[in-house]
Every structure is written in structure tokens, then in C-alpha cells.
């Protein structure tokens, strides 16, 4: 066998060895029962350059140790929008940047969220857990201590990337019996205030939907269905709006999605204060039907009395969807279901009645906040790279508790006002 061929096999074998030998899985990586260490070894010049050029998506080579296994030939870059930082950079970790088909715990990539926009450092993880609990797909997350060249560099969240792997795991089989992961995946790229108004027939206007798959295909294949969808949601008569839009979206699922964002006090999501933001959009294989996917939720838990219909009338899709009685009811029902869910008692922590049934005590959300807080408190306090004080962290935690204790009652009252 030729020497280069032997070397190629050796390389492939060595690359595959860590995952094969230790059978690491993403489930282990996102096991949120503990805070893991993530250790990155990088040239100090590259780390300095990454921080200096933190607004650019330049990749740097590194090795990374997770779950006790070191992966070589990995690429990292600065990431984020408003969360970009030169002192505590958010990082995207690409396992296959330099090594084709390399994965880390079965993942081609993941995000190390720097948690700089949320003094509680908990909102993102809590929100994703909330969405999953309510039956909508959301990235898995766990907290981690990040070490750069053996120096503690802050408390981060390991966040599952929304990519083909996520889509395949989430949606399962396609119509042909294969894995549903070859559709068109888009990340919404916030550039200006936009609320689903029709932007005309020029497909360039829809490039705010940044393709993450099939990027090299013709523009018409990528964006035409989006243009068609936006045109329909703006121009379809009221009488046919539901049936016309059914070609593009499951309006019930959309109603549920925005209801959950409203419930959790998200002011920077689909109905954000400055227009659409923070979501992925997946168009299923061989169809024009798409689904919104939740992303980047560090601005949630705005307030316990966050209005449940906030910005609904500003967004074309939300307004017209919730004008449909069926969808409006779905929206309100989802709010009530969410209220019920976050208040769910636990036999171990609740006060029990004579029959052993829990009758009062902290609900699911309050318990989850406290559990995560206890997990990360020590590391959050010692994180000197966070752009806020430890006191800010403690106060933010208290506000989360306040939200958890009061949100359900407020929402129930508001729903009653709309639908007595």
C-alpha cells in the first residue's frame, strides 16, 4: 500500500479513535445534571487575534477536550450578534473545519455561549428547557467551565447547533423513509426592523433568511418559496388566508410558538421589539412547508407582567393568524397550558395533603431556576470575564424567581380578560 494511503488510514483511525473508544454521545455532552469542563488549547497569538477581531468570523485551529477526550484539528471562531465580546468571546466550535467528517460527541459543531447579555446566566438554558417541555424542538444546553490554555476563562453554556444533525434528530423520518435533514435550513439574519411585510418579487430582499444548507443552489430554489409565503401572508384574502397559508406553515404550530415566546417574556423573538429576530426556519424536504425553530433566548423573562399580546398586531403573520378564531384560541390555550406546566408541583418539594398529593410549593420553573442556579453559582461568581458584577448575578436570579412565582397568575388573568 502506498505510504500516503497508509497515512490517510492512520489519520482517519486516530481521528475516529476518541469517539469510538469512549462512545461519547451528545446526550452526555448536554447532560445538565452537572457543569462540565471544556478545555481548549490554542496558540496564544490566535486567541489574542480572535479577541481582537471578535466581530469577524475568522477560524483558528485548536484542540479541545470535552468529556475527558481530546479532539485535535478543530476550528473555533467568534460568534454572536449583540453578544460579541473581546473579553469573553462567544465561540462556535467546528469539529470538521479542518478534518472532514470529524465529530465531537457526535456533533459536527456546537456553540459556547458567552452568556454576556444575561446577568443571571440562566435564561437561555431555562427557555430552551421550557420549549422542549412544551413540546417544541429546541437546542439542548448545559453549562460548562471554559479553560483556554489551562486558564479558567469563564462560565459558558454549551449549546447544540441548529444544523442538519439537529434537524434529523428533531424531525426523524422523511417521506421516503430516510432521515429528514435535507431540507432548506435558514438562520434569520437580523439586519433591519422587519415584520413580514411583503418585500416585492426581488429575491435578494429575502436573503435575511441566511441559508445553512443548499447554499450553492440557485436563488430561486432557495428563496422563491419564502417570497411566495410572504406574498401569500400579505395578500391572501381573509376568507382563504388559512388554507392558502397551509401550503407554507402549520399555523397551529406557529400560534403555539409565539404563545410560548410571549409566555416566557421574550421581547426579542418573532414578535420582538424591533421586529423579527432569533429563530431558524426549516423548509422540509420536497415541500414548501416550513417550521420556525427557537434560537438565542437570552432576552426572555422580561417581567412577570409582560403583556401576552405584545406586538401581535405589528407582525403581519401573527396578526392575520390570530385573527382566525381557531388560532386565537390555540394561542390562548397554549398560554394556559404553559401556566399550568411551569406551576407543576413535585412530590419531593411540595407540601402534600392527607392522600400524599402535592398541594403547594415551588412549581417546575422555580425548581429548575433554583437547580441551575445552585449548579452554576460558584463558577458564575468566579467568572471575572462576565460584564456584570456578582451582585447583578444574584439580583437577576431573584428576578427569575419572581417571574416564576407570579407569571402564571398574571397570564391567567390576562387570558380571562380576552376570553372570559
Amino acid at each position, binding site marked *: 500500500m502506498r505510504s500516503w494511503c497508509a497515512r490517510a488510514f492512520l489519520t482517519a483511525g486516530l*481521528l475516529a479513535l476518541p469517539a469510538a473508544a469512549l462512545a461519547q454521545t451528545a446526550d452526555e455532552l448536554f447532560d445538565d445534571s452537572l457543569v462540565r469542563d471544556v478545555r481548549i488549547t*490554542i*496558540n496564544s*497569538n490566535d486567541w489574542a487575534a480572535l479577541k481582537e477581531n471578535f466581530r469577524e468570523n475568522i477560524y483558528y*485551529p485548536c484542540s479541545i477536550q470535552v468529556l475527558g477526550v481530546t479532539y485535535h484539528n478543530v476550528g473555533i471562531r467568534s460568534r454572536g450578534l449583540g453578544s460579541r465580546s473581546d473579553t469573553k468571546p462567544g465561540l462556535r466550535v467546528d469539529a470538521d473545519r479542518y478534518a472532514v467528517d470529524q465529530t465531537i460527541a457526535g456533533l459536527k459543531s456546537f456553540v459556547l455561549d458567552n452568556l454576556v447579555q444575561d446577568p443571571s446566566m440562566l435564561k437561555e438554558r431555562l427557555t430552551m428547557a421550557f420549549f422542549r417541555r412544551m413540546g417544541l424542538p429546541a437546542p439542548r444546553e448545559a453549562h460548562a467551565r471554559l479553560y483556554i*490554555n489551562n486558564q479558567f476563562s469563564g462560565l459558558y453554556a454549551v449549546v447544540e447547533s441548529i444544523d442538519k444533525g439537529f434537524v434529523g434528530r428533531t424531525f426523524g423520518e422523511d417521506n421516503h423513509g430516510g432521515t429528514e435533514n435535507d431540507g432548506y435550513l435558514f438562520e434569520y439574519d437580523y439586519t433591519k426592523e422587519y415584520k413580514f411585510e411583503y418585500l416585492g418579487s426581488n429575491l435578494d430582499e429575502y436573503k435575511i433568511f441566511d441559508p445553512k444548507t443548499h447554499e450553492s443552489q440557485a436563488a430561486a430554489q432557495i428563496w422563491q418559496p419564502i417570497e411566495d409565503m410572504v406574498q401569500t401572508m400579505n395578500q391572501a384574502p381573509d376568507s382563504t388566508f388559512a388554507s392558502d397559508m397551509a401550503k407554507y406553515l402549520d399555523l397551529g404550530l406557529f400560534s403555539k410558538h409565539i404563545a410560548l415566546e410571549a409566555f416566557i417574556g421574550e421581547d426579542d423573538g418573532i414578535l420582538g421589539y424591533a421586529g423579527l429576530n432569533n429563530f431558524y426556519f426549516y423548509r422540509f424536504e420536497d415541500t414548501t412547508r416550513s417550521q420556525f425553530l427557537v434560537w438565542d433566548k437570552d432576552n426572555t423573562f422580561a417581567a412577570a407582567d409582560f403583556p401576552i399580546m405584545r406586538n401581535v398586531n405589528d407582525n403581519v403573520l401573527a396578526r392575520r393568524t390570530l385573527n382566525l378564531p381557531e388560532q386565537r384560541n390555540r394561542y390562548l390555550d397554549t398560554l394556559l397550558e404553559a401556566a399550568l406546566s411551569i406551576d407543576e408541583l413535585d412530590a419531593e418539594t411540595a407540601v402534600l395533603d392527607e392522600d400524599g398529593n402535592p398541594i403547594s410549593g415551588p412549581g417546575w420553573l422555580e425548581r429548575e431556576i433554583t437547580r441551575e442556579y445552585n449548579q452554576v453559582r460558584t463558577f458564575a461568581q468566579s467568572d471575572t470575564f462576565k460584564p456584570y458584577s456578582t451582585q447583578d448575578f444574584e439580583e437577576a436570579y431573584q428576578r427569575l424567581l419572581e417571574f416564576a412565582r407570579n407569571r402564571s397568575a398574571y397570564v391567567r388573568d390576562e387570558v380571562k380578560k380576552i376570553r372570559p
Partner: protein
Amino acid sequence: MRRVVALLILVLLPCAVHAQQSSSQTADQTEVRPDVRVDFPPPSIRIGEFRAALRLKLHADFRDFDPELGENEALFRRVRVGLQGRLYDDLEYEVEAELRDSQHPFRDVLLNYRRFRAAEVQVGRFKVPFSLEQTTSVFNINFVERSLIASQLAPGRDRGVMVHGRTAKDVLAYEAGIFGHDGDNTRYNGNSIDTLWAGRVVVTPWETNRGLLHSAQIGVAFTTGSLSEGLYGIRGRTISEYEFFEPVYVKGERRRLGVEARWTPGPILVQGEYIRVNDERNGQGLGDVDLPDALAQGWYVSGSWVLTGENKSGGSLSPSRPFPTKGLGAVELAARIEELRFGSDGTGGEPPFSNPRAANILPNRDRILTLGINWYLNEFGRITVNGTRETMQDPARTPLLGRTRFWGAVLRLQFVL
């Protein structure tokens, strides 16, 4: 249409100039005054010891690759004008500019003090003395392109000062100089070296012998310079200019070593070179550890045979029966096999990786077989046809992912006045 016009111009131009030269040799050597003489071609003037000759050099290429690589066909590859001559008997000068290069048009800009044959002094911008083929004009090589090692590993031109000469009855020739940077061929990421030392020694052991080995020569050359820290490693490019090896991070010394040999017995030419470039990578690893040197190396062996029998020992060839006045010119067959490979000078105990800070750099190699035919119309014009077969090592780093073999063909028309 442009192709046809260019083809006609570049075939007819040398014929016209040659015909002009043949028919009116005496008429164009005009003595204006006893100490002033004007000649053509090339257009030149002598005023006492002062001499000036205007030079024009053209290359037009017609390229094709299989598979189609979407390369940008450069119709006129080179359009150079120059002035060369002497300010007085001991001081030569040369200025040459490439008109297609608007950013850095100047190629050679030099003065050469030649009072002492054993120790001439050259200053200005010119080729760093390294590599037989790189220091041979591209208008005098046997192929359309220089070998990969000559065009990518040798420094090329730079600003500097050089002492050079011949001694020991011309058995030994030497060049030694100091230059501002590492040459044009490695300037793609900026200047990587601030001071480059270079030297070359060529021995012609049988120079004084009139036998078969009279023209045989061997040489050795080196350069050394301190590399700036950064992504300044040497890159590798294919014929179609695809980057099959990307630069790596370096810091420390860059050391080049070159070995060359050439033999021109009559109409035959045999030539070969080996070049090795070591780039130190001090502190360039993950966690700032030192890495094994990045290593770029390669070789070529080439040969040619002038079917019409002309002697090629001087490097260039002037047909004994020039076209169209006395015959069909001269015809030469040529072949070259070459290899350029990249990797690291050691593994660092790691498997090979492709990232620019890998201890063990994932190697890649380009190997090319070139077959060619040269038709020397006359001393001014030449038509060259080259066919190439290029074979890459790493299927993930080729112009077409997964494909490792590429074919190419080039027709070149050359005019030198």
C-alpha cells in the same frame, strides 16, 4: 475573434521583423556621426560608450484544461518593454516593465558595474541568485511554464545588491547578495523576511575541455533569512493556480537549499534541480509549543532535443534556417517530469492534520509530466505547444474535489525583439 487577431499578429510579427532584418541589414545600421550609430532590430543607439536598446517581449497563451476548471484564460500573458545597455563601458543598466501589471509593473531595474570580471557588482531590483530555471529568462526556457519548484520555492526578484563573477578560467561562477525581502514569489501574504542572504556557486568542471562534457555544470545555492511571525509559510499552487497547499504559521529562519545540474551536448539539453525550503515554526503550536519545520521540497528533470540540429549550449536558440527567408526554422522536442510536495520535517508525535498549526502537517503533492514541442520561427518568434498531466496526492485538496488527475494543453506564441 481576438484570438485569431492575436495569433496572426504574433506569427506575422517575427516574420516581418526577420524579413526586414534580412533584406536591409546594412541600411539599418546607420552611422549618423562618427561616434553615433543607430541599429534595428532591436532599435538601439550607440553614442560613444553609451548604448541603449529598446526591447519588446510578448507572450500570448491559449489554454485548455480537462476537466474544465473555469480558469481565466490570459490571452496576452506577458507584454514587456525594456531598455538596456551601458552608461559607459564598465556600467551596464537595465529597466524592464510588465505593462499588464498596473500595480507593480517593474521587473528588472538594475545597474551592473563590470570592471572586474571576477567581481562584478550589481545593484537594484533583479532576481535573487537561486535556482537555475528561475534565473533563466522565461523567454529562454524550453516550456511554457517554469517548473513548480522554480516558480514557487525560489525567491524570484527583489531589491538588493550582489557581487558576482567568474574565475578559475571560467570554471567557477558565483553570485552572493543581500536582499530586502524574500522575493516576489513568496510575497502573497506580505513581506515575510526583512533581510535575505543568498548565494549560488556553479562549477563547469570541464570548461577548458573541448570534449562532450564541456558544457556540463553543477551548482548549489542557498538563501537564509529571518521569518516574521504569521501565516507566511509557502503555499503550493497547481498549473491552473489552484491552491493545493495553504500557508502555515511560521516564525524563525527560512533556509533554502538548491542543487542544480545542466548539460547541453550540441542539440540536446538535460537539466535538473532539487530545492528544499525549511521554515521554522518556533512557538507556533497550540499552547505556543515549537513545531517541526514546515517543509516544502521538490525536483524536476527535463530534457530537450533540437531535431533540426542547432546547438543549444548558449541557452537560447537561433535557427540556422530562419523562417520565412531561408527555411522553416528550428524544431525542438522537450519533456519534463517534476514534483512539488509539502509537509513537515517531523511528526511531533502526532498524526497528520490539515490545520495551519498542525505539528504534523497533512502532506500534499503535485506531480506533473510535461511534453512539448517548440518551433523557433527565427530569432524573434517561437511557437510552443505543451501538454501536461498533473497528478495530485490528496483528493480533498485538488481543483475538483475527489479528482486527482488533470490534463492541460497550452499553445504559446512568443515574440522577442
